[in-house]
């Protein structure tokens, strides 16, 4: 069953010529790979898996998507209502796929743990959404978009998928505009764009600082239309806790009704997971408090591979933690770095108020280390530099964990009014969030976990290694490689939701015409239901003294330290040991307060933390195993003299997709690989200098 997806099931699409023969065992399959690194004491043991087939269409990369679509099988209009598709998540990816599949005529069941579809975390994105519409004469084009995306991802993403992203992007903007997103306009009435980090053209569409919100509300309204028409059955306050796999295919999910506590199966012909990213594993991140890894992780536990879970983007301008009870690190726009100067006191541990520290005792470390770029160095470089000075004891703020972003000089140079005009709303937001006035005292910022490039491994059709299970949006791993370009993830969620899933899911379904939805008493359903019940009952039965938050907080500290902005072999080994320690304490001393027959947020949290405690280990194993630096994955052992990530294309121009087993005891990890090839964008060293 593990590799069931590779058996050419009738469902498998004949699309294109597989560029790698399916299921070829890599050298030494099943054996522990004893690389130089894994000979260390306590190093995680990694088994070599199979070579995976991405089932990308062959031929020229830039025509891949149209060729793929040409070959996809279809389901006739009258047959569509015979299929039921379960879509978990109502973010851009989830709402888009549910709405579009329903519009095409399929029965759709949409699930979210929120009380309303519109609350999905896509709502919080600020900056904008990219599109290669190439309307202006700044020489933007589909291929330039692909180049930026592939290069931005430090050559660890699929080139053909980047082409799909670029090709479909114009349609995404048109659709969103039609369903009510009031995109920013020029005075002449055409769409306005801004420019984002990592690119030299202006292709980011936006609505003030609330692009995600406008997109999400529009997506939720698209979904609402189908709910109203009776084509989507909407479950709210239901959390997916397991996947039902029968006959080697995903045929349903087990959900928990958060109002009553009970579990129940929802069954269908295919399952789409659009459940967002898992950055919250770091305890404090820029994500919403309830975003979590559970859906993806439970799918993984049922056999879906996780691709490069350690690829996580840290944002340099997040708000730091000032007190123990501060709940998260809110994201501040990167644009602040245009005028703000970043510094820390020269003296470690200096606890004077910022304005009392004389000019001579301030270290403008970015300007010092990177004279050419100064405060505008790329995200990952800025995050790493901040971590360096904080680790060296120069951190500021009550917890000594942040750096100053100072507008004093800019205000002196441009005047308060000009600064207010440029950043007024951001300053207001900062004030809202911290109660400090950035006009008079410098802002404090710190790197915060922000976006997960890693996620469920999917092929070009967005199908995971379990047939019938699809992953869309941030829950999947596609498009972004080792580093995501600003404003590309809203796009990828939209492309997946409105355009990819509605083409690829029918291709899969076409092979299953006439098959009924499995019955609620079938063995797989009962097994999944029972194992979920016993999982929760076991957690409830621990009856210890420590609430889930405490474990999560500790886990976050371990991960920020061991598998954060920078990683090292020793650090990762130490982190794994600590994670295991926390995990065993969790199973001994967990306390779930409150009644179980009604809303119980502690119980919700406990389930999520249990999953984090497992996924965290895999994160570290992946980071350890990938013995190179690329994009956001920065192994201190591999850096250029300038402190840039040093890739090892020879051994690591490939995707790692993880399988794990034996969680009741000591887990065993198997790494399957998918080699990456680049045609249109030749491999080169990423260098923004």
């Amino acid at each position, binding site marked *: 069953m593990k590799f069931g997806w590779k058996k050419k099931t009738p469902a498998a699409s004949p699309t294109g010529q597989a560029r790698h023969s399916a299921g070829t065992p890599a050298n030494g399959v099943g054996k522990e790979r004893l690389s130089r690194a894994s000979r260390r004491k306590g190093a995680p043991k990694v088994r070599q898996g199979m070579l995976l087939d991405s089932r990308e269409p062959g031929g020229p990369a830039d025509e891949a998507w149209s060729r793929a679509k040409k070959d996809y099988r279809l389901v006739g209009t009258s047959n569509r209502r015979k299929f039921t598709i379960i879509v978990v998540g109502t973010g851009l990816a989830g709402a888009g796929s549910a709405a579009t599949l329903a519009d095409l005529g399929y029965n759709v069941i949409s699930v979210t743990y929120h009380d309303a579809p519109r609350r999905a975390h896509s709502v919080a994105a600020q900056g904008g959404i990219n599109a290669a519409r190439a309307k202006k004469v700044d020489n933007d084009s589909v291929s330039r978009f692909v180049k930026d995306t592939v290069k931005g991802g430090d050559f660890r993403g699929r080139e053909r998928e980047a082409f799909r992203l670029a090709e479909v992007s114009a349609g995404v903007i048109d659709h969103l505009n039609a369903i009510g997103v009031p995109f920013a306009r020029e005075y002449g009435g055409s769409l306005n764009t801004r420019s984002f980090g990592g690119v030299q053209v202006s292709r980011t569409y936006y609505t003030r600082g609330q692009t995600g919100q406008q997109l999400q509300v529009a997506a939720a309204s698209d979904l609402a239309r189908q709910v109203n028409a009776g084509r989507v059955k909407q*479950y*709210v306050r*239901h959390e997916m806790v397991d996947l039902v796999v029968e006959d080697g295919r995903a045929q349903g999910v087990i959900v928990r009704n958060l109002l009553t506590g*009970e579990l129940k199966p929802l069954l269908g012909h295919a399952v789409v997971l659009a459940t967002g990213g898992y950055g919250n594993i770091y305890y404090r991140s820029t994500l919403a408090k309830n975003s979590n890894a559970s859906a993806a992780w439970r799918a993984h536990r049922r056999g879906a591979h996780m691709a490069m879970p350690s690829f996580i983007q840290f944002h340099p301008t997040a708000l730091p933690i000032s007190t123990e009870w501060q709940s998260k690190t809110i994201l501040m726009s990167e644009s602040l770095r245009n005028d703000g100067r970043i510094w820390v006191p020269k003296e470690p541990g200096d606890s004077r108020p910022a304005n009392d520290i004389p000019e001579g005792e301030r270290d403008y470390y970015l300007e010092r280390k990177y004279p050419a770029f100064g405060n505008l160095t790329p995200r990952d470089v800025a995050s790493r530099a901040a971590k360096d000075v904080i680790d060296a004891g120069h951190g500021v703020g009550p917890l000594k964990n942040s750096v100053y972003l100072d507008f004093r000089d800019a205000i002196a140079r441009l005047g308060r009014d000009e600064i207010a005009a440029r950043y007024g709303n951001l300053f207001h937001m900062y004030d809202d969030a911290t109660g400090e006035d950035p006009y008079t005292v410098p802002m404090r910022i710190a790197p915060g976990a922000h976006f997960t490039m890693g996620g469920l491994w999917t092929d070009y059709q967005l199908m995971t290694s379990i047939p019938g299970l699809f992953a869309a949006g941030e829950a999947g791993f596609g498009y972004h490689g080792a580093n995501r370009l600003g404003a590309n993830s809203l796009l990828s969620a939209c492309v997946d939701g409105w355009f990819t899933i509605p083409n690829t899911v029918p291709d899969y379904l076409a092979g299953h015409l006439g098959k009924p939805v499995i019955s609620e008493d079938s063995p797989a359903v009962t097994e999944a239901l029972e194992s979920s019940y016993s999982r929760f009952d076991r957690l*409830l*039965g621990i009856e210890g*003294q420590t609430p889930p938050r405490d474990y999560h907080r500790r886990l976050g500290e371990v991960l920020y330290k061991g598998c954060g902005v920078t990683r090292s072999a020793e650090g990762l080994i130490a982190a794994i040991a600590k994670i295991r320690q926390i995990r065993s304490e969790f199973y001994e001393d967990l*306390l779930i307060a409150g009644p*179980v027959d009604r809303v119980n947020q502690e119980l919700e949290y406990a389930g999520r933390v249990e999953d984090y405690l497992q996924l965290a280990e895999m994160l570290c194993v992946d980071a350890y195993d990938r013995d190179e630096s690329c994009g956001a994955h920065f192994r201190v052992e591999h850096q250029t003299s300038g402190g840039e990530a040093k890739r090892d294309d020879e051994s690591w121009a490939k995707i790692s997709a993880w399988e794990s087993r034996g969680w009741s005891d000591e887990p065993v990890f198997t790494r399957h690989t998918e080699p990456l090839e680049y045609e249109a964008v030749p491999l080169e060293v990423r260098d923004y200098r």
Partner: protein
Amino acid sequence: MAQETVKKPPVRTLPREGRVTGADDILLERGRIGKAGGRIERVRPSNWSLKVTAAMTGVLLALFVTIHMVGNLKVYSGPESFNAYAHWLRVVGDPLLPEMGLLWIVRIVMGTALILHIWSTLLVRYRGFKLRGGGSKARLHGGSFISRLMLTTGLILMVFVVFHILDLTTGQANSDFQAPTATDSFAYENLINSFSNPLFASIYMVSMVALAFHLVHGLWVLATDLGVTALRTRTVWKAVAHLVALVVALVNLSIPAAVLMGVVS
């Protein structure tokens, strides 16, 4: 200490069949509590039509009091003029209309408007009262001081209108009332009689204060109920609303005051 307070309940398990007291099972299945979306059961008459009715009748009533106020100004030009005006009201439209024809038309229109106004506004407030939810809400200050008084001032006005008709039109409330004849009206004398009584005069004056309040918010809410969205129009209208309300109420108020102070007699 903490250990002691932790009472170990019997081992808990997730409910196999979930239920929430006070919630509809069919909805609960989808994760919701409370009323279903589903098919719309239209509430009739709809809120918007009630509001438009209140607004339209409000316009008529406001026009009436404004014109009535202008007529009342004739008090200051002496008994002949005022009585002649009162008489004219009865015969206007002659010979096209029978005597008091136009007056009755106006009476019927205004009576209907008043009834519709009272009906629609009371229904609006009743629906709002039912759906406001438990607990007491803090009073914020969003101009809601006057808006919350609408019901009170409206009821005062209702009582006032009845009293006023009994006083100056039919005379039951006015002991020295002189009914109009075919050729003459004694409106002026009746009015002086009535207002010379400090109690009557103060009823009038209090009612006029109520009228001012009612009109200030009433005329402002009109713009919203009739869907005026242009910001400049709204600003101008708000000023007009305040002005009209004040002028109507002050001019009317001045009459009993003048009688009491002996300026008019």
